[in-house]
Each structure stands twice: as structure tokens, then as C-alpha cells.
């Protein structure tokens, strides 16, 4: 086993060693090759980077578009537009039913006074027939109106009569109710008196009973003072005499028990006897008075009870029903008033109807008169149509320009139909333009506006007035322009109105203007020379804006003419950044 192992090891050594030798032989060469290749690649890379360094750098820079600083005139403008309107115009109307035969005018055409505008043809038999029919209708209507019946007031009069009868009936009812109520008033007074008396007696009875009870119990706290007389004072005196006797008797007893002198005992005895006599007298007085008063009160109580029974027998059992009858008279009075009002209304209605009838009669009279006139007019028209030879010329009354023609050939006109509108050129044209108050502030009267959509320059517009807007809620202003030239009403024109212009030394494109913490500024392109070519840097220059129009701004800044300003950039450009100019 060991031998086999050794043999195997030798074999391995024999096989491995030549390989290792081979590696050792190739290794330095291979290493050199690798290093050489790496160096070549590295140097080639460096060379490429050197060649294209500028291009690579440029690729990473922001590309900017530029514009130059200029000088010149800058005009701020307000734009607006509106419809041209004639200051004065008149309408050509048809004076009857005609057929339009010839139209001699067209929109925008200039016409002179008495120029023939339209030739109209009469409608012939049709017209005559129509006129005859109209006349017949009018006459029929007139005759019908004559047959109208007079106004009938019977109904109104019946209303008045009914109202009067109803009033009379209500008055009779009221008088009857009054009589009935007078009798019941006396009974009611008696009843009220009895009730009061009954109440009074009941009160007296209660007091008497309370006083009798008090006399019986010798306690006068609940008793009526008007019936007790001097009983409370007599009772008090009796009690006091008793107290004095008791005190004297106690003194005497003490003297006897104490073995005092005979003189003292005798004096005490005498005093006790004297006080006993007083006590007996007081008690007797009280009992006499008590008996006397109690008797009187018993008699009074019996009388009172009899009186109460007497009154109670007189009073009715259901007192409320008797009281309710007093209202009927008032109801009757109200009813009379109501009927009176109804009668007044009926009378007033009758009077109004009669007055209205008078007015209607007058109106009808006038209508009849008008109808008569219409009939006369229709007769005249019919006569005129019968006489007419068939054609009518419509002529212009003034010099002017046709602003619109409203009829077509062969169209049938109706009376007062507008056939054309003619602007009086001498009166001129105006355009109204709505603008905000802020814009209006910058404009001055008399300024001449440029008309944007007037290609041949034949129209002129001058600002003649600035007015407030007709709308209450709006603070807008209305600019009024006098328009002259080749124009007709209804033409829409667009105006560019100069607010004022001035020459400026430094004008920059609006797109170059930027804002920052320290106000407005522009980024200027500064050029620096280097061995690899020109390089461009953005430099910040502060500016003060003086004026602007749509595309440019006049500024106050330290900028030379033809300086390049950055107007746009492919990415954000900060002051000091290197940039790449688009065209360079």
C-alpha cells in the first residue's frame, strides 16, 4: 500500500513539476504583456480624453440661446377692438305692399340725395281685392259696434234693494234684543245684590260661631273682636286677681309655717282675704258679662241663619245660563253694522258701474270715430290703388353710404318694412372699445390708433373720449374713437393704441429679464480665451426696468450695445456658470 502511495506521489511530482516550470518560464513574459497592454489602453484612453476633452466638457454645459442688447424706440401699446357704428343713420321704409322689382344699391355703396334706391311694383288686383276686403271688414265691424245694447244695471240695483231689506231686518232684531236685555238687566242687579248679601251673612255667621266657641272655651285668640266686647279684659283681670290672691296666700302660709310674729301673720292673712275678695268680684264680673254676651250672640246667629236661608231660597240654581243672554244684543248691533256696510258697498258698486258706463260710452264713441276714420282711409287707399299705374321709385333722402340692404328682389314688402339702412357719412363713425381703468389711465385723448386689420391703410381712428362703463359693477372704461375713411357701420376693426413711446439706450429682450432676491437682472455672456479655445461664462448684471412692450424691455443698466444676453438655457444657469452658446 505504501509502495503504491509512493509511486503515485512520484507520478504526481513528475507530472506537476514540468507544468510549474512551464509557468515559471512563461510568467514574466505574460506579465510584461499584460502590463504593456494595460499601459497602451490607459494611454489611448488619456489621448482620447485629451482630444475630446473640450467636446465632453461642452456636453456637460448648459446650452444657452442669446440675444443682443439694442437701443431705440419702445412703444407700449393697448390693444382692443370693436364694431364701427355710424353717428347718424336713417332707415328706408316701404310705404305699403309692393313687390321689390329692382335694387339699385349694395352694402357699402355711396349714394346721393334723390338717387333711386329701389323700384317697387304694385301688387295690382290682389292689392285692390285685399283693400276691398279690408274695407268691408271695417264697415262690418263698425255696424256691429252700433248695435251694442246699453248697459243693464238691474243686477246692481237688485243688490242694493236686497242689502237695504237685510239692514231693516237686522235693525228690528237689534231693537228686540235691546228690550229683552233691559228687563234682564234689572234681574241681574238683584241677583248680584243677593249674592253679595249672602256672602256677607255667611261671613258674619262664621265670625259669630267662632266668637261663641271662644267664649265657651275662654280662649279669645280666634274670636272676632267686634263681638267679644270687654270679655278678654275681664278674663285677664280675673286671672290677675287670682294670681295676686295666690301670691298673698303663699305669703301667709309661709309666715304661719315659719313661725313669724303674730302681727306679720295677721297682716298676711288680711292681705290674702282682701285679694280673695277682689278675685271673687272679678270672676263674678267676668261670668256675668260672658253670659250676657253669649246670649246676644246666640240670638244674632239665629237671625243671621234665617236671613241666609231667605236669600238662598231666592237665588236661581243655574246662575251662568242667565248671564249668557246679555251677548245677543251686541251680536245684533254687529249684524246691523255689517248689513249697513253691505248696503254701502252695493250702492258704491252701482255708482261705479254707472260711472264706468259713462266712460265706456265715451271710449266707444272715440273708437267708433276711429273706425269711421279707418273706413274713410281704407276707402281712400282703395281709390288710390285703383288709380295707381303699378310702379314706385324709392329715393334716398340724404347723401350717405349704404350700411345694409334688408330686402331681396321679388320680395313683397309690408307697410313700414325697413328695406335698407344708410349711414350719413358727414356725421362720421365711431368705435367703442372696453378697456380696464388701469389701461385707460395710460391713454390720452387725441392719440391716433393703428388699425391692425386695415391692410390698405384707408381707415383712421382717433381717440376722442374716455367714458365710464355703463355697467355699474364694472370699473372698466370705454374708449371712443372717431373713425374716418373707407368704412361702413358693422365693420369690426382691431386697434393698437400707443400709450406713449420714447427712445431708450438699453433695450433687452423680455425673455432675458430674470428676477432674484435683489431685484431684476440679466445674465450676460462673458468670453474668456484659453489654450483649448474660447470659454463662455454667465455674469449677472442688475437692471432697472423702465418700460416694456410685448417682446422687449427698456432698462437702466451697465450694458454695452451688442452685449450677448442669455434668453434661454437647456438647464438652470447660475451667475458664474460656464455655458455653451448655441450658435458657436
Amino acid at each position, binding site marked *: 500500500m505504501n509502495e503504491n502511495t509512493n509511486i503515485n506521489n512520484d507520478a504526481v511530482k513528475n507530472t506537476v513539476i514540468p507544468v510549474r516550470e512551464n509557468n515559471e518560464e512563461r510568467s514574466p513574459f505574460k506579465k510584461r504583456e499584460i502590463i504593456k497592454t494595460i499601459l497602451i489602453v490607459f494611454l489611448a484612453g488619456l489621448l482620447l480624453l485629451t482630444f475630446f476633452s473640450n467636446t465632453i466638457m461642452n456636453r456637460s454645459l448648459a446650452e444657452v440661446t442669446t440675444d443682443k442688447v439694442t437701443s431705440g424706440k419702445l412703444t407700449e401699446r393697448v390693444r382692443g377692438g370693436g364694431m364701427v357704428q355710424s353717428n347718424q343713420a336713417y332707415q328706408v321704409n316701404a310705404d305699403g305692399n309692393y313687390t321689390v322689382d329692382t335694387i339699385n344699391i349694395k352694402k357699402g355703396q355711396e349714394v346721393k340725395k334723390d338717387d333711386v334706391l329701389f323700384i317697387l311694383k304694385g301688387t295690382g288686383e290682389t292689392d285692390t281685392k285685399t283693400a276691398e276686403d279690408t274695407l268691408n271688414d271695417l264697415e262690418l265691424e263698425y255696424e256691429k259696434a252700433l248695435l251694442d245694447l246699453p248697459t243693464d244695471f238691474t243686477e246692481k240695483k237688485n243688490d242694493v234693494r236686497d242689502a237695504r231689506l237685510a239692514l231693516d231686518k237686522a235693525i228690528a232684531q237689534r231693537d228686540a234684543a235691546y228690550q229683552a236685555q233691559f228687563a234682564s238687566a234689572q234681574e241681574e242687579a238683584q241677583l248680584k245684590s243677593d249674592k253679595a248679601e249672602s256672602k256677607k251673612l255667611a261671613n258674619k255667621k262664621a265670625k259669630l260661631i267662632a266668637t261663641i266657641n271662644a267664649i265657651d272655651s275662654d280662649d279669645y285668640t280666634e274670636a272676632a273682636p267686634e263681638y267679644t266686647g270687654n270679655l278678654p279684659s275681664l278674663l285677664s283681670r280675673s286671672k290677675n286677681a287670682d294670681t295676686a290672691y295666690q301670691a298673698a296666700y303663699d305669703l301667709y302660709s309661709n309666715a304661719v309655717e315659719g313661725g313669724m310674729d303674730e302681727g306679720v301673720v295677721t297682716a298676711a292673712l288680711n292681705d290674702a282675704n282682701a285679694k280673695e275678695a277682689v278675685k271673687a268680684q272679678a270672676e263674678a264680673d267676668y261670668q256675668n258679662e260672658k253670659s250676657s254676651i253669649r246670649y246676644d250672640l246666640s240670638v244674632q246667629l239665629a237671625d243671621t241663619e234665617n236671613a241666609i236661608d231667605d236669600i238662598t231660597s231666592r237665588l236661581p240654581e243655574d246662575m251662568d245660563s242667565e248671564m249668557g243672554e246679555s251677548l245677543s244684543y251686541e251680536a245684533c248691533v254687529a249684524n246691523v253694522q255689517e248689513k249697513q256696510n253691505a248696503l254701502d258697498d252695493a250702492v258704491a258698486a252701482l255708482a261705479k258701474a254707472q260711472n264706468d258706463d259713462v266712460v265706456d260710452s265715451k271710449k266707444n264713441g272715440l273708437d267708433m270715430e276711429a273706425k269711421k276714420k279707418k273706413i274713410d282711409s281704407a276707402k281712400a287707399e282703395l281709390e288710390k290703388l285703383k288709380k295707381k299705374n303699378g310702379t314706385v321709385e324709392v329715393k334716398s333722402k340724404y347723401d350717405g353710404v349704404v350700411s345694409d340692404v334688408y330686402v331681396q328682389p321679388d320680395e313683397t314688402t309690408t307697410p313700414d318694412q325697413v328695406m335698407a339702412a344708410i349711414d350719413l357719412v358727414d356725421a362720421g363713425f365711431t368705435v367703442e372699445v372696453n378697456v380696464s381703468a388701469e389701461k385707460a389711465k395710460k391713454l390720452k385723448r387725441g392719440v391716433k390708433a393703428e388699425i391692425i386689420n386695415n391692410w390698405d391703410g384707408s381707415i383712421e381712428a382717433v381717440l376722442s373720449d374716455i367714458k365710464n362703463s355703463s355697467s355699474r359693477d364694472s370699473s372698466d372704461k370705454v374708449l371712443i374713437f372717431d373713425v374716418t375713411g373707407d368704412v361702413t357701420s358693422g365693420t369690426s376693426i382691431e386697434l393698437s393704441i400707443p400709450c406713449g413711446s420714447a427712445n431708450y439706450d438699453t433695450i433687452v429682450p423680455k425673455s432675458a429679464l430674470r428676477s432674484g432676491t*435683489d431685484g431684476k437682472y440679466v445674465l450676460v455672456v462673458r468670453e474668456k480665451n484659453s489654450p483649448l479655445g474660447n470659454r463662455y461664462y454667465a455674469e449677472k448684471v442688475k437692471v432697472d426696468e423702465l418700460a416694456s412692450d410685448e417682446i422687449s424691455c427698456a432698462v437702466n443698466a451697465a450694458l454695452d450695445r451688442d452685449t450677448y444676453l442669455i434668453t434661454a438655457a437647456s438647464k438652470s444657469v447660475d451667475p458664474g456658470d460656464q455655458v455653451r452658446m448655441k450658435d458657436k
Partner: protein
Amino acid sequence: MKKRIRKRYIAVAIINAAAIAAMAVLSAAGSSLASSQSWNMAAHRWGCDSSDKFTQMSCFFSDDSGFSKDEVRNLYGNIMGKLNEVSVVPEEGKKLVPQAYSAPLGKYNVKCDMVGRSEAELYAAGGDFFLFHDFRLISGAYFRDEDLMQDGAVIDKELAWSLYGSSDIAGKNIYINNVKLYIAGVIEQPSTSAEKSCMGKLPMAYVSYETAGKLAGESVSGNMSMLPVGTDDETGMSTLSDSQPSKEFRKITCYECIIPEPVENFAENTINKYFKDTYTNEVKIVNNTERFDPKKRAKQFGKLYKSVIKDDEISYPFWENSSRIVEYRLSCYYGMRRIISIIPILTGLWLIVKLFIFAKRRKGMLRKRLSDLWLKFKKMIKREKKPALPDISA
């Protein structure tokens, strides 16, 4: 045995190099992606040469929130009041807080003086809208609030080509719903993939609030949300904007402003406090200056699922939607970077431990070497301090 250890070290080195390279790539990609959203960089553009810090805030409102131009005045007053409290006041003639507001108007037919016509998506834009939205201008200029005539429109290149077959058409006329406007500027269409995916198929046009009012006045229903596409009259082409019945358009669905930051989070706190009570569920407030901050984005990586939940009635404009897409991507980038960074950190810790063990074993030798180095250093310093010999030739 030696060979095996060396391979492990090489593997660790390769993994670390790959991790660091991946982190660098993710950082560069994130930075590039964030900077591509120039609409979130308005604060930087505004204060590019100022040492003060500014924050760009955006507020998006639901359609029925009722936020209008009047409220903008109130909010502006509130912000200025708060700044005044911390002694930040505007200099004479300079703006302290630029602000912009906008609202979508819907789809409209746009025509030109010639035969060209196209349907376009319209936005009403007011304030310093184009400071915040710096579209690349191809021709013309942006319209501004201070312009006397407010009948300018900024249209995109596609619309310009549809109408006039050219993009150099600033100053030419267009007609929207019978209202005549002039082309103030032509802009390049947004080019990033996020923006393209949010833009919609129709070309865009921006008009002033005054023009929006005129369009509202022209609309039969008077409701700006009604789309009057196809209602324009062929004969009404010459109607000028100023002659239109004007109806003030006040609706705002997006409000943006740049506020100085005298103290940290001043802007965000001020805006949040203002809207806290009145527009609780109808407004979404975004701090644009900090939204792409790597730390913030990396934190959000674990909560990405929340970004798909919509819990409000607000429809965002395309620029905000594209910013949200970028936010999502940045969260992925920076989240991944954070995860990958664990590898070099762990390697570093492992090396420190190794170094500590090595130092402990060879303490004496290291001390000797350090003292030798110190002596050499001292000698070298002494030699340098020796005075130079006088120049004999002189």
C-alpha cells in the same frame, strides 16, 4: 492555507469595491435625477447669489376647496407679518416672497390666423408662475403680471407646430374659444421621462388669469370646468379679447411661494399653521426644497407602500405628479445606497477589530517603531532649523 486566506481577502476587497462603486453610481444617478426636476429648484434660482436660505413651498388644493386670489392676498399678508415679526423686511423695490398660482382650465380648441387648429390643455397662471416653472423658451418671452396687456399666451412647441408649422411664432395670433390672444412665447416640452409620463397627450398652453376670466365669460355655462371644445364660431375669429364680456376667474388649485428661512423650518411652519384650521383636508403642502434630500428619501424607502395610498380629493398638476415619481425613484436609489453601505461599514468594523488584535499582539514592537519614527522626525526638524551659510561670492 495561505492561498485560501488570500482569496478570501480578495473577495472581500472586490465586494467592497463593487459596493462603493454601486453607491457612487446610485449617488450620481440620484443627484442627476433630482436636478432634472428644475421646478423644485426655484428657491435655488431665486437666491442663487444670496447667502440667505430660502424654501420653496407648494400647496395643492382640491377643486372645491374655495381657495382663490383673495385668499392668496391673505396668505401673503400672513407670511409678510410673520417675517416682520422676525425682523425680515423687504428692501425698497425688491420682492421678498415671490409667489405663483395656477389652475387648470380644461381642454380648448385653439385656432390660428391660418388653417391650423389643435386641441390643447389650458392652464391659468398668475404671479411669478414662470419663475417657478422655468420651461425652456424657444422663442418670445413669458407673460408677466405687470404687463399692461394680459392677452399673451405661452404655448408649447407641439401646439406651435400644429398651428403654424414653426416654433418661431412669438407675436402671432391664436384664438381660444373666440378670444383672440397673441403668442407671448413658445416653450420646449418637458423632456424627462417622469414629466413625459404625467403630461398627457394634448399640448399645453398657459394664459393669464385675466384671459381665463374672458374665457369664462365666453363659456355658455360660465363654469370653467365645462369644456367648451368645438363650440367656437368660425365667424368670430376677429373678435378681440378686450371686447369680450369679462368674468373674473379666481380659482386656484396650486399655490407656490419662496420664503426666506430666518430660522429653521420657518417657511414650513408658517404655511402649515395658516392652513391648519381652514383647509385641513383640502390642501396638500409640500416643501420642495427638502423633498429630494437623500436622508429624507432613504427614510421613506421603508414606507414606499404609503405612496400608493391616495387619501385626498386633490388632483395634482403634471409637474407635481412628475416630482412624486422622482421622489419614488429617489427613495429607491437612496434606500438601496443605504443598504449597500452596510457592506463597507461592516468591513471597516472588521478591519478595526483586526487592527486592534494585531496591535495587542505586537505592542512592544509597535511602540519601538513609533519612538524611532518620533526621533527621526525630531532630528529632521532640528536639521531644518540650522541657519544657512553666508554667500561668500556676494
